[in-house]
């Protein structure tokens, strides 16, 4: 059975705008993105919204629904009361282009800064990776780059000036993935702390909470990376071990 749902949608561009009220028909089994599309087709043909797969796999329709960072295509209307007003706004951390579409180029700039895989002297075809090692990084490869984690991370959400020296959970996870790769010979611990701002993370786990792929970003990437950084920079016993040759270090990786 369909019903008339009340929506408040942020409309505007260049930062200026306001929440506008709409009433949209919603049918059984629909998600927020369906309602936004119906709104486009009826009352607001100029409403800008980025979307692609409608299956939670492309990471395009990231927004904030009732203040919570979500994929609109994965947010069922059945989770709201029929008389509840559903508020849809663009991601707050990134500049808005128009309506619900934000400029996420910050993320691509940070992605370019992460030094790529360094296999050392291993030639293509020489290295065979075992399943147990594949599984570890496979979790991080599930990322669909919706950037909800970077959007919700208070380090840049509430302190925009940190964008310059903080890569956000998404790209700290990428650094961790490479650092844990058995064939990668580079030591990425220094750059994780100095260039990508791992020390700014205070592990409040919001990145994990909002991840639509349920990647344990904090427990499996950020905290293990923090522990590795401790071994590189803050552990006097490891420092002593490296001085007397008991602990071996890889070569430092310069920022790309």
């Amino acid at each position, binding site marked *: 059975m369909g019903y008339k749902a009340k929506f408040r949608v*942020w409309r*505007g561009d*260049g*930062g*200026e705008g306001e*929440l506008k009220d709409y009433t949209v028909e919603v049918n059984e089994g629909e998600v927020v993105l369906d309602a936004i599309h119906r709104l486009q087709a009826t009352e607001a043909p100029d409403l800008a919204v980025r979307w692609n797969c409608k299956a939670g796999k492309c990471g395009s329709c990231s927004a*904030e629904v*009732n*203040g*919570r*960072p979500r994929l609109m295509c994965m947010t069922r209307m059945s989770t709201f009361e029929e008389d509840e007003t559903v*508020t849809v*706004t*663009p991601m*707050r*951390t990134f*500049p*808005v*282009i128009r309506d619900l579409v*934000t*400029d996420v180029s910050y993320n691509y700039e940070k992605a370019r800064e992460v030094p790529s895989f360094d296999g050392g002297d291993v030639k293509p075809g020489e290295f065979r990776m*075992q399943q*147990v*090692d594949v599984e*570890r990084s496979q979790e991080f490869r599930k990322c669909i780059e919706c950037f909800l984690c970077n959007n*919700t991370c*208070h*380090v840049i*959400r*509430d*302190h*925009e*000036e*940190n964008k310059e020296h903080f890569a956000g959970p998404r790209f700290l996870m990428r650094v961790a993935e490479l650092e*844990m*790769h*058995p064939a*990668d010979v580079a030591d990425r611990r220094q750059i994780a702390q100095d260039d990508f*701002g791992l*020390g*700014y*993370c*205070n*592990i*409040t*786990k*919001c990145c994990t*909470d*909002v991840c639509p792929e349920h990647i344990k970003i904090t*427990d499996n990437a950020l*905290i*293990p990376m*923090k*522990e*590795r*950084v*401790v071994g590189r*920079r*803050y*552990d006097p016993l490891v420092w002593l071990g490296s001085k007397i040759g008991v602990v071996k270090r890889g070569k430092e990786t310069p920022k790309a």
Partner: protein
Amino acid sequence: MTQTTVDAPSKDRAQIPARTLRKDRYWLSPLTTFIVFTAWVVYATVRSMMGSSFWVDKYHYLTPFYSPCVSKACPPEAADFGRFIPAHLPFFLPYALISLPFLLGFRLTCYYYRKAYYRAFWLTPQACAVPDKSPARKIPGAYSGETRLPLILQNTHRYFWAIAGLISIVNTWDAVKAFHGADGGFGMGLGTIILWINVIMLWGYTLSCHSCRHVMGGRLKSFSKHPVRYWLWTQISKLNTRHGQFALITLFTLALTDAYVALVAHGAFSDLRIFN
């Protein structure tokens, strides 16, 4: 035909006056944490400084807040690790002076507790997608996370974990000693069971620690070359998913164990004996 260009929109965030648009009771969890942690700290502080009702001589129950009991004021039966701290210390120095500061450090630097108290006490942030309320928010560049003193000291967690492991061995010894009957032989009472539940939970909390997971195998680049350490890592990882639960459960078991021993020692009621 005249060509026209459109100016690129300015790069500003969406201006939304509301602090947050969340409608759920996001404040409830940090508020609960605040109340529970504050109550626990007050209770633990008072009890560890009280200097009485910490030992049941008849059944050899020692509360974890006084373990190891190393003050000259401890009864000799309760002091298996020596009595080398003067009996008359300032009131704020506990009898278990060699363990409590490290246990406090272990919990303060714990990854689970950090999340909990950053949210509940420092409000950085109070909840996800709710603005940070710390004073640093109003000063550009003031937020430094865990990069400067004092929070850079969170990186000492692995040392506190190692010491906490040693103290867990002492707590296990206390639980073994609690199999002490009224006639001096083997015995078992409700206090013994409570002490054992507490020590098992303490081991769960200590072994599920993220630093433990790192040491056991997390620091490796290749699991396949170290199968034993990989196995250890997988076992610790299973526990690690419940680290937060162990952290909270041990708060309750510690307080419950201490309260039970204190009440029995004080004579409020006698221990419920199962055997001898």
